[in-house]
C-alpha cells in the first residue's frame, strides 16, 4: 500500500509536465484547429537558450524567464510567419508545415548546441519527502506541480475574466463573426500560439533535469503530452490537464509494476482505447456543434 501510494504520488510531477504540453496543444488546437507537431521541439529550443544563460552564470530564475520569453517570441513567429499562410487551406497543409518546423528546429538545435545531452540543474532538492513508508514528491516535484497549476489557473483567469480572453475565445469559436465585431482575429491567433509556446517552454525547463536536454529530448514528452491531450479531448483545457496527469500516474504504475520499457507502448494502448470508446476525448463537450 505504501509503495502504491509512493508510485501514485511519484507520477504526479511527470504527469503535470505532460499536462502542460497537453494544455499548450489544446490552446493551439482551439485557436487554429492545427495540431502543432513542433510544440515539443520548439520547447526544447527555448530550454537550450535557458541552459546557455545558466552556463554564462545566470540564475535559475533568469534562465527560466529567458525560456518563457523566447517561447513567446518563437510561438508568435511560427504562427504569424509559417502557419498563417496555410491556416485556411486543407488541414493537411498545416500538419506538413508543423512537421517541417519540427525537423528544422531539431536540426538547428543540433547545429547550434550539439547532440550531447546536458543535465539541466534542478535548483530544488530532488530528495523525496518521507512519511512513514511512503516516499515521494521531492521539493522539485512540488515546484513542478505548483508552477504548472499556477500557469493553468492564470490562463483560465485570462480566458474567463479579461477582455483579451473574451476576444481570444470568440476568435477561436467563430472567427468570421469575431471579425465582424471588430476583433483582430489574426492577432488573437498569434497570441494563442505565443502563450502555448510559453507553456511548452515551461514544460521543457521542468522536464530537463530528468530527461537530459538534447535536440530530441522533448520528443517522448511531446508524445505523452499529445496522448494526454487526446485523452482529455483536444477541445478541453481542463481535460488536457486531467489527461496529462492521469497518463503520468498511469505510466508510473507501468514503470513500477511492469517495467519502464512498456511505458510508451502502454501510452499508445490508452490512446487507442480512448479513441475507440470516446473519439472526441473524455472531457470534450463541443464535438458536435455547427448547426
Amino acid at each position, binding site marked *: 500500500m505504501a509503495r502504491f501510494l509512493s508510485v501514485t504520488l511519484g507520477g504526479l510531477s511527470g504527469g503535470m509536465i505532460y499536462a502542460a504540453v497537453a494544455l499548450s496543444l489544446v490552446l493551439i488546437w482551439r485557436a487554429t484547429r492545427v495540431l502543432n507537431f513542433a510544440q515539443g521541439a520548439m520547447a526544447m529550443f527555448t530550454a537550450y537558450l535557458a541552459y546557455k544563460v545558466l552556463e554564462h552564470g545566470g540564475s535559475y530564475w533568469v534562465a527560466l524567464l529567458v525560456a518563457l520569453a523566447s517561447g513567446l517570441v518563437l510561438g508568435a513567429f511560427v504562427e504569424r510567419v509559417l502557419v498563417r499562410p496555410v491556416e485556411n487551406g486543407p488541414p493537411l497543409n498545416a500538419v506538413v508545415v508543423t512537421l517541417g518546423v519540427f525537423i528544422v528546429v531539431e536540426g538547428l538545435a543540433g547545429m547550434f548546441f550539439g547532440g550531447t545531452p546536458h543535465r539541466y540543474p534542478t535548483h530544488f532538492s530532488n530528495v523525496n519527502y518521507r512519511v512513514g513508508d511512503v516516499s515521494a514528491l521531492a521539493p522539485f516535484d512540488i515546484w513542478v506541480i505548483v508552477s504548472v497549476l499556477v500557469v493553468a489557473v492564470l490562463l483560465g483567469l485570462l480566458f474567463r475574466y479579461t477582455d483579451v480572453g*473574451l*476576444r481570444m475565445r*470568440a476568435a477561436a469559436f467563430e472567427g468570421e463573426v469575431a*471579425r*465582424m465585431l471588430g*476583433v483582430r482575429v489574426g492577432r488573437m491567433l498569434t497570441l494563442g500560439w505565443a502563450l502555448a509556446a510559453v507553456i511548452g517552454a515551461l514544460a521543457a525547463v521542468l522536464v530537463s533535469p530528468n530527461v537530459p536536454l538534447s535536440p530530441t529530448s522533448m520528443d517522448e514528452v511531446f508524445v505523452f503530452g499529445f496522448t494526454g491531450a487526446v485523452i482529455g479531448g483536444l477541445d478541453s483545457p481542463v481535460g488536457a490537464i486531467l489527461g496529462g496527469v492521469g497518463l503520468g500516474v498511469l505510466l508510473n504504475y507501468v514503470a513500477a509494476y511492469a517495467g519502464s520499457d512498456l511505458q510508451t507502448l502502454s501510452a499508445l494502448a490508452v490512446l487507442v482505447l480512448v479513441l475507440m470508446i470516446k473519439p472526441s476525448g473524455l472531457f470534450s463537450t463541443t464535438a458536435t456543434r455547427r448547426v
Partner: protein
Amino acid sequence: MAEGAGGLSLEVKDLVTSYGAITALNGVSLSVPAGSITAVLGANGAGKSSLLRSLSGLVRPRSGSVLLDGKEIAGRAPEDVVQLGMSHVPEGRGVIAELTVDDNLRLGGLWRKDKADRSAALEEAYALFPPLDQRRKRLAMTLSGGERQMLALGRALVARPRVLLLDEPSLGLAPRITAQIMGLVRRLCDETGLTVLLVEQNARSALSVADHGVVLNLGSVVASDDPAKLAADDNLRHAYLGF
C-alpha cells in the same frame, strides 16, 4: 433620390462581387439616406447576402465604391468596417453559441475605447431586450430563435453603429416575433437616427417598415422605389417577391 452630400449615410456605386467565375453582384448601386430603412428584396440567390457581405468586408468586392458617410470603405477588412461605424448582423444571426449572453453582448463593444459608454451601451441593450436581461449568464446555445435574433441585434447595437446591415432577421421566426423585431428597428431609426439596410426574403414584412425598397435579381437592381409602389406592382411581386 437626390445625390445630396450630407443626407446619405451609405452610398453604393457599381459594386461588382464574384466568387471565382460566378458573379454575385453585377454592378449594384443604391443609396440609403441617414435615419432611414432601405429594404433589399429578392429571391434566393439574387445576391442579397452577397451585397451585405461585400459592404461589411467579409467579401472583397471586385470593383465599385462604397461610401460610408462620404468615406470610401470598399475592400476594407470587416474589423475596420465595424470600427468605422457600420455593423453587420449576419444571416443565421452569428451568435457565438459557446459564450454566455453577456459575453456575446460585451464582445460587440469591446473594440471601443470609451469604457464608460461601453457599459452604458450594454445596459441599453439589456433594457431594449428584457429576455436577454433575464438570461445574462446563460450560454447563447440555450436561447430560442427569437432571443438569438435579439442577441445578435443587441450585440451590433452595443457598437453604437451609424449604419446597420441586417440580413434576414425574420428567418425562422414566428410572425409575431418578426413583427416585434421589425417594429423595434423602425423605432431605433426614428429615435436614434440609425440607418438600416435590411435584407429580407419576407418582402411583405420588410416593406411594411421600410422607407425605400430595392429589388435585386441575379446580382442586379431591377427595381428601386417607394415600398407602397413596389408592393402594388403585380408583375414585380409575382416575378421576384413571391407574394
